[in-house]
C-alpha cells in the first residue's frame, strides 16, 4: 500500500517535472495572448487605437453582415478576402502535394546514404532567411525579372508576363516555403509502405492504377492528410508572402489582420478577424479528428488472439 502510494507520488512528481515547464510556457505565451485577443474581439475600438471596455459585437458584424450603423458597416470584401485566402491556401496544398508525393516515392527507393542526402537538400532552404528567399522570387517574377527577360530573349513572348502581384505569385511563394512541411510527413508514411504490399496487389490481379488506388493511396493517406494540414494552416494565415509577392492586389486575411493592428489601429476588429481564422481551422480539424476516430471505432472489435 505504502509502496504503491510512493510510486504514485513519484509518478506525479515525474509528470510535473516533465510537463511543468512546457505547460507553464504555453499557458503564459499562448493561452494568455489568445484570451486577450478573444476578449478584445468583443470590445469597442478606441478612437486612437486601443480598446474601450464596452461589450461590442459589431466587430463580427462587420465581417458577417449585421453591422449597419453610422460608424460600422458590413463589407462583403472581408468575406471575399477570407474566401480568397482559403482558395490560395488550398492551391498551395494541392501544388506542394503534387510536387512532394512523387518525390517522396523516388527518394524512399534510394540507397540509405543518398536518401539522407536528398532529405538534407529538401530542408536546405530553411538555412537561409525567409525574407531573402522571397526577395529572390521578386527578382525572378517581376516584369524586368529573370523569367520574363529569358522568355523575351528567346522570343517566346514580346510583352512581359504579369506574374508578380498575382495569386499565382503568392501560391508559388507559399509552395516554395512550405514544401519541407509537406514533404516530411509524406515521406514518413511513404517510406513505411512495404513494397511487399504492392507486390501482393499485383499478384492478386490488380494493375498499376488499381494498386495505387486500393493500396498505395489508402496506406499513405495519413501522410497526405498530415502534410496537407501542416501546410494549410500557415498558408491560410500567411502575410509575408502575399505582402511581398501579392502586393496590394492580392490581399490575404493575414495582411488584413496586420493592417488592422498596425495601420488602421483597430485592434478589436483585427482580433475578431483572427478569431474567425482560428475558429475555421479548429472546427475543420475537429471534424477531421472526429471522422478518423469514428472510422477506427467502426472497425475495432475485441481482441482475440486465440488460435482458431
Amino acid at each position, binding site marked *: 500500500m505504502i509502496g504503491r502510494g510512493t510510486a504514485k507520488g513519484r509518478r506525479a512528481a515525474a509528470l510535473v517535472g516533465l510537463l511543468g515547464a512546457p505547460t507553464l510556457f504555453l499557458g503564459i505565451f499562448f493561452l494568455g495572448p489568445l484570451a486577450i485577443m478573444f476578449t478584445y474581439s468583443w470590445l469597442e475600438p478606441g478612437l486612437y487605437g486601443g480598446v474601450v471596455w464596452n461589450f461590442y459585437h459589431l466587430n463580427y458584424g462587420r465581417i458577417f453582415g449585421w453591422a449597419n450603423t453610422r460608424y460600422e458597416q458590413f463589407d462583403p470584401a472581408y468575406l471575399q478576402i477570407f474566401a480568397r485566402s482559403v482558395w490560395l491556401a488550398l492551391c498551395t496544398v494541392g501544388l506542394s502535394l503534387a510536387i512532394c508525393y512523387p518525390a517522396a516515392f523516388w527518394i524512399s527507393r534510394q540507397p540509405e546514404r543518398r536518401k539522407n542526402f536528398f532529405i538534407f537538400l529538401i530542408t536546405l532552404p530553411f538555412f537561409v532567411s525567409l525574407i531573402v528567399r522571397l526577395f529572390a522570387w521578386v527578382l525572378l517574377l517581376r516584369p524586368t525579372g529573370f523569367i520574363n527577360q529569358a522568355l523575351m530573349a528567346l522570343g517566346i513572348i514580346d510583352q512581359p508576363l504579369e506574374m508578380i502581384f498575382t495569386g499565382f505569385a503568392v501560391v508559388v511563394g507559399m509552395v516554395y516555403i512550405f514544401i519541407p512541411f509537406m514533404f516530411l510527413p509524406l515521406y514518413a508514411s511513404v517510406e513505411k509502405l512495404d513494397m511487399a504490399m504492392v*507486390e501482393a496487389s499485383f*499478384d*492478386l490481379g490488380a494493375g498499376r492504377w*488499381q494498386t495505387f488506388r486500393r493500396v498505395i493511396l489508402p496506406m499513405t493517406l495519413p501522410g497526405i492528410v498530415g502534410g496537407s494540414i501542416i501546410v494549410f494552416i500557415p498558408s491560410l494565415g500567411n502575410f509575408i508572402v502575399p505582402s511581398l509577392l501579392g502586393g496590394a492586389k492580392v490581399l490575404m486575411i493575414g495582411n488584413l489582420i496586420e493592417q488592422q493592428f498596425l495601420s488602421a489601429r483597430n485592434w478589436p476588429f483585427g482580433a475578431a478577424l483572427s478569431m474567425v481564422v482560428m475558429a475555421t481551422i479548429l472546427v475543420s480539424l475537429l471534424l477531421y479528428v472526429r471522422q478518423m476516430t469514428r472510422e477506427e471505432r467502426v*472497425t475495432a472489435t475485441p481482441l*482475440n488472439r486465440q488460435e482458431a
Partner: protein
Amino acid sequence: MKMEATSPMAAAQARDAAENGPARPVLEIRHAMKRFATPEGQEVVALDDVSISVAPNEFLTLLGPSGCGKTTLLRVVSGFEDLDAGDIFIDRQDIAGRPAYRRPVNTVFQTYALFPHLSVARNVAYSLEIAKVEQAETRRRVSEMLELVGLAGFGERRINQLSGGQQQRVALARALVARPKILLLDEPLSALDKSLRGKMQQELKALQHELGISFVFVTHDQEEALTMSDRVAVLGQGKLQQIGPPHELYRTPSNVFVARFVGESNLFAATVSEVGPAHCHFRLADGQEVRLPRRDGQTFSAGDKVQLLARPEDARPSPPDNGTGLRFSGPVREVFFVGTHYKLVIGTSEADEPLKASLPAGEDLGAGPAPGQMIELWFPASRLHPLAGEVGS
C-alpha cells in the same frame, strides 16, 4: 461443405487428365538463367540453367540454403523478376514478359503482406473485387474460403487483431480464393513457432490435397520439405542439384551437397577398387572394403575417389555374424537423449569428421553410453550409398 467446394475442380482435373494425358505439367521452367549485380559491382548467378516441371495437383518444394536461388525462381514464376534466358510455361502457354497481375498464379508471401487498412474479409475478397466478380458470389466465396482455413466469423476483424497463425491463414485464403493454377508459397511458415508450424504443415498438405491445386513451396527447412512434399527440388548455388520424391533424396542423394543438406550424414572417403558387372568394390582409407550393387546411371571406374554415405540411424551397435558392412570404433564424445533415440557423436581416427550415430533407446542400452566410453559401430552395406566427388565439392 468442403467436399462440395472442391468436387467440380477435381472433376475438371480428371477430364483434363483424360484429354491430355496424366503427366501434362501445369508449370514448366526450361533452362532458366538469372544474374544479379551486387551493389559492389560483382555478378551473382541466382539461377543457372534450372529446368523444373510441376504436375497438376503436385506439392513441389524448392529446398536450399539462403541465396541458392529458390526465392528468385518463385519470383520469376509470379512475375516479379524476369529471366535473362530460358522459358516459363503455365498450362503450355509461354508467360515470359506477362506482368504479374496477368498470371494465373498467386503467392503467399513470407511476411504475408496483408493489407492493414482492409478487414479480413476485404483482404480475401481483394482479387475478386479486382476481377469484378458479382457481390453475392464474392461474399459466398470469401466465407467459403474463410471456413476452409478455419477462420469462419473472423471476416470483420482487422489484420492487426490477428495472431501470426491467423494472419498466415488469411494470406492463404486470399491467395486461394481466385483459384489459381498454381499456389506459390515463399517460406510461409518461417515466422511461426515450432508447434504451430507443424500444425500448419499438416493443414497445408491437407488443403492442397482437397483443392487439387499445384503448390510450389519454398523453404530452407529440410525437415519441412521432406514432411510435406510430393517431390523436392534441391537448389544450391543457383543450380538444380536434384529433384525427386523425399525418400529418394534422403536415401540416394545424387551428390555430396544434397546428402549434406537433406538430413544428417556420415561421409566416408573411399576409392573404387574394382568394378564388376553388377557390383562395385570400394576401399576405405583404413583398408576396409565393401561391395555394393551398381545402380542405374552410376559410372564409376577403378581408382575413382568417392564418398560413401551412411545416415546416423543406419548405425548398429554390433555386427551380426554374417553380412558385410563398415565397422568403426572410437570414444563417445557426446550423447544426446531424444526420447526414442540416443544420438551419439563419436571420434574416430578414420574419418575427418566425428561420426554421427542414432541408436534406438531400447532396454539393452539402459541409461545409454557414457561420454568417453569406447564404442563399436557397424553400418550394413545395404544402407551405404556411394557419391561421386570430394567432400569439399
